[in-house]
């Protein structure tokens, strides 16, 4: 939806070029930039629900954590270990798996995380789509909080002490590179964020996008017009969850050690960042969440290094200024400022004539 097509194409190329060059240009920041791609994925998937459909989910982080755990469990099983024994050893087991086992486990794990999260979202949607407005927000927040506690009590997956993931073996994907593992996961993160973008970009151009917006603007009207609202809502959440599941699986492997409260279900950090980033960039737009994610993440990382201790104050300030003075977000503001560039215009009778034809 941003400006003209050529401008969007240029923007895409610029982002892609940055993504491909950045890890070689700034090898020390690979992990931070990988995390940026995950943040973009977060903002895009949150915006599908909160921005495009008007369902402000505060529990989308649940699928990140669920994906992380599903992926880890599959990796352990494919590695030939018993999950209960593996987790009971608290990382003391000398993990001994072949390279093939590692990569097979990882990719089956990521696929299982995606599919498993879709499945979970369908079940949750069945119960939670009856809730509207703040009730949906708080209800979904409850899911994420409860999941953290439940996993913490579940011994089979390591409970509160978490799981140490199988380590990345040596491989020759990036010969001669110092940080092969970093590059490997960096490009997976980038690929999943790009795939998320391309998928939603396509989706919003189909009837699906119109239906989501109709639900956002007036769900009762949409029902009254015969739109299959439940179907659209379920599929929308399933699509979000699919990509969130993958991001969870990847993040778990990047940090090597997962546990329920801080890493898998970080409700008050990542869970809130998702919302904040979409709002900052402009919810309900395609590029807004991306812009919001980049700004937010850069500010977060910079304040982390240079303003240690003030980081939370800085992030809090951004959120407050955004919500109080700037609710439409950056892209939303641009659309208000330059409506013609976004196709909002009145036609004079002269241009309107001769079209249509019924009257």
């Amino acid at each position, binding site marked *: 939806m941003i400006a003209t097509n050529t401008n969007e194409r240029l923007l895409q190329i610029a982002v892609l070029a940055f993504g491909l060059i950045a890890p070689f240009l700034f090898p020390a920041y690979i992990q931070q930039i990988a995390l940026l791609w995950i943040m973009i994925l977060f903002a895009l998937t949150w915006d599908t629900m909160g921005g495009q459909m008007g369902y402000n989910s505060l529990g989308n982080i649940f699928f990140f954590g669920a994906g992380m755990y599903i992926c880890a469990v599959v990796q352990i099983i494919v590695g030939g270990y018993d999950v209960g024994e593996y987790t009971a050893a608290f990382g003391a087991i000398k993990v001994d798996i072949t390279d093939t086992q590692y990569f097979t486990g990882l990719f089956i794990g990521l696929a299982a995380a995606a599919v498993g999260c879709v499945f979970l979202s369908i079940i949750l949607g069945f119960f939670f789509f009856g809730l509207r407005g703040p009730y949906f927000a708080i209800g979904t927040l409850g899911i994420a909080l409860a999941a953290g506690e439940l996993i913490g009590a579940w011994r089979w997956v390591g409970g509160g002490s978490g799981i140490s993931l199988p380590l990345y073996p040596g491989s020759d994907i990036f010969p001669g590179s110092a940080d092969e593992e970093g590059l490997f996961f960096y490009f997976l993160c980038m690929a999943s964020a790009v795939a998320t973008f391309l998928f939603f970009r396509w989706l919003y151009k189909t009837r699906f996008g119109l239906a989501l*917006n109709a639900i956002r603007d007036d769900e009762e009207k949409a029902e*009254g017009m015969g739109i299959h609202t439940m*179907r659209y809502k379920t599929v929308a959440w399933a699509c979000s969850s699919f990509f969130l599941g993958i991001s969870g699986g990847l993040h778990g492997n990047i940090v090597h050690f997962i546990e329920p409260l801080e890493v898998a279900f970080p409700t008050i950090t990542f869970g809130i960042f998702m919302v904040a980033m979409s709002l900052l960039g402009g919810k309900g737009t395609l590029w807004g969440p991306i812009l919001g994610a980049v700004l937010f993440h850069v500010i977060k990382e910079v304040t982390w290094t240079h303003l240690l201790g003030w980081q939370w104050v800085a992030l809090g300030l951004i959120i407050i200024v955004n919500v109080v003075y700037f609710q439409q977000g950056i892209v939303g503001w641009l659309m208000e400022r330059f409506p013609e560039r976004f196709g909002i215009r009145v036609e004079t009778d002269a241009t309107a004539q001769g*079209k249509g034809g019924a009257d």
Partner: protein
Amino acid sequence: MGNVIEVRGVSKAYGGVIANKDIDLNVADGKITGLIGPNGSGKTTLFNSIVGFHPIDGGSIRFDDQEISTMRVQQIARLGLLRTFQQTRIYGKMNCVQNMLISIPHRKHRFLDMFGHSTAADREKADSLLEFVGLYGKRMLPAGDLSFGQQKLLEFAMALMNEPKVLLLDEPTAGINPTLINGLIDRLKRANTDFGITLLVIEHNMRVIMNMADTVYCLAHGEILASGAPEAVQNDQRVIDAYLGAH
């Protein structure tokens, strides 16, 4: 010619307020039926009951010889029975064309149709219907930026886009500039004659009803007071009394 809607003994109460009591009403296929009555007499409540917006307390509602009183809003809408709202409801942040494109008939939609693109035929139809209600020039504006009257016209066009068999219109001329009302009456009639849509119309404007309706029902205090040809109902002493205040 048969009845496309048959309402029999329908009652609906909100807490202690009896909004509809034992209503009998027929909508003849292919015709325009009018529904009049003082404010608060239960007209909108009856619409809500027919389209499944709320469960009824008793009675039966048949559409095309099928009992619909236990069905849900979307199912009924997909059968081809649609309503517009007295307060006018459109999708405010979407532009007029988008409002129209998402109003295509959903009855034939299968799962994969969700991911389809709007067809050229859809777009043409959207444009020509917007032209039909005089909103073509405004079609790229967010619907929420239109005036109340324009939103009413848009909602009417959206309903036509849906190709309903029967359309229930809740005060279609309320808030429309008096000089435009004749044009609107003409369009409503054309929806009936050219598009073959059966209409059930709530109206306070007697001129509109007398001009359009084949049959008129008058509600007062939640009950049907009189029904029949427009002139007969208009001259019925009970109807005159009801309108002149005795309530």
